[in-house]
């Protein structure tokens, strides 16, 4: 799975949680999940559960804390699936 595929899957998973739907149109690796997409911070645990299911990986809590941008999520998933 290449980075573009992971990116697209990540964006798809984030979509229902995004409160600022306009920000989705220009979404890139640099897009901040909380600040730009306005995802409710409490919902990050649900997003992470969906990442785990979609990519068949396990993400521990310390890793979750490092995810701020869409790019951070893509990199983390990329590393996990090796």
């Amino acid at each position, binding site marked *: 799975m290449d980075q573009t595929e992971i990116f697209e899957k990540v964006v798809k998973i984030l979509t*229902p*949680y995004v*409160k600022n739907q306009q920000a989705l149109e220009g979404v890139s690796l640099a897009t901040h999940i909380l600040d730009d997409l306005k995802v*409710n911070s409490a*919902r990050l645990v*649900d997003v992470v*559960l969906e990442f785990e299911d979609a990519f068949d990986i396990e993400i521990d809590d310390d890793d979750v804390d490092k995810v701020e941008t869409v790019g951070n999520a893509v990199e983390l998933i990329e590393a996990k699936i090796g």
Partner: protein
Amino acid sequence: MSRRVVVTGIGVLAPNGNGVRDFELALRKGLSGIRLNEKMIECGFGSHVAGVPQGIDELAESYFSDDLLLAMNSGHRCGAIAGVDAWTDAGFERPDPDDDRVDWDAGAVLGTGIGGMDTIANAVVPMTNANKVRRLGSVAVEQVMSSGVSARLSGILALGNQVTTNSSACSTGSEAISMGVERIRRGLAERMLCGGVEGASHYIWAGFDAMRVLCRRFNDAPESASRPMSATAAGFVPSAGAGVLMLESLESAQERGARIHAEVAGSAINCGGHRGGGSMTAPNPEGVSRCIQAALADAQIAPEEVGAINGHLTATGADPKEVRSWARALGCSPSDLPPITSTKSMIGHALGAAGGIESVACVLMLKGGFVHPSINCEDVHPEIEPYAASIPHTALETPDLQVVVKAGFGFGDVNACLVFRKWNE
């Protein structure tokens, strides 16, 4: 004299009709919303029938964003739709989620009898037992906390006054309205969205089936199963939905030129103390009569001014006692009892939502000048026979109807009574 409180908005989701127009039509026609329930059959219930508002999920998807829907169980969906409907019916716009303004003068008392049992049963218990607590994610708590239904609505409408959830079993919805009236009378709020909510879930109904208080004898005839005041009444039919009223101070309503549906002239809440025949599951008749009398006194309305009664009347053995309590409270002979009707005959018993939905029925009856029929009691219970002439089997046209009294009685021997008065410009 304390401030007057009027109803300026209505929202309702009931098994026999969603929205004010369909619900009123169903009430006038005496339409039953009771249907066979596959889950109850599958899970070996004695009763196979229930009242479930139709199309709630589709409706919720048209009202709320994906982000909200992720954490809205059945009760949340019913309560939020009815709450938003009451708000817009009162002439207010739904605020933009990005608009930071809060309406500090508007609040909500939105009650639920049982709460998020579907979330507990479908997610919390199985995940926890399977050592998968983490899989619950962030959405469990807000659907399980009792105040979730009112909290959800406050977020959607930016309500800034008191926002809470009351719970008093089957008197919940009526109690919520009484609480909102008091708050507005005291000048602590201008507008309160009040009423009751109950989700549709066989998990909510299971315990009642085990108590053998649900109707089992009409599984082959769902629409005939809810039979308040009937000789063949065989227990209540569980149901779900929401009924929400926008209560408003008369000053606020007049100042903004709002359309007034009716007035809440008075109310009362009490408990029979589990004495004198009262218990966890049965009402003390003295408590019931006192509650009705206190509500009339609060409204400064004489018993002979009561034009119709919307009873609690669930189709259990308590119906004859309730009818006698009404007559005693109003101090009238059986032949002088005003028309008495049970909304539950058409929608079943919506538990915490019952008082909310049935209060909507009262307001619609006052506005439309009718008393809806109490269906399925052509064979009136022998103990109610002396009052039989007061039970409408088809809609009564009553253009002069001025006062409707609604009462709700709940497990725990708790009572709530509301007095609605027609609004005459």
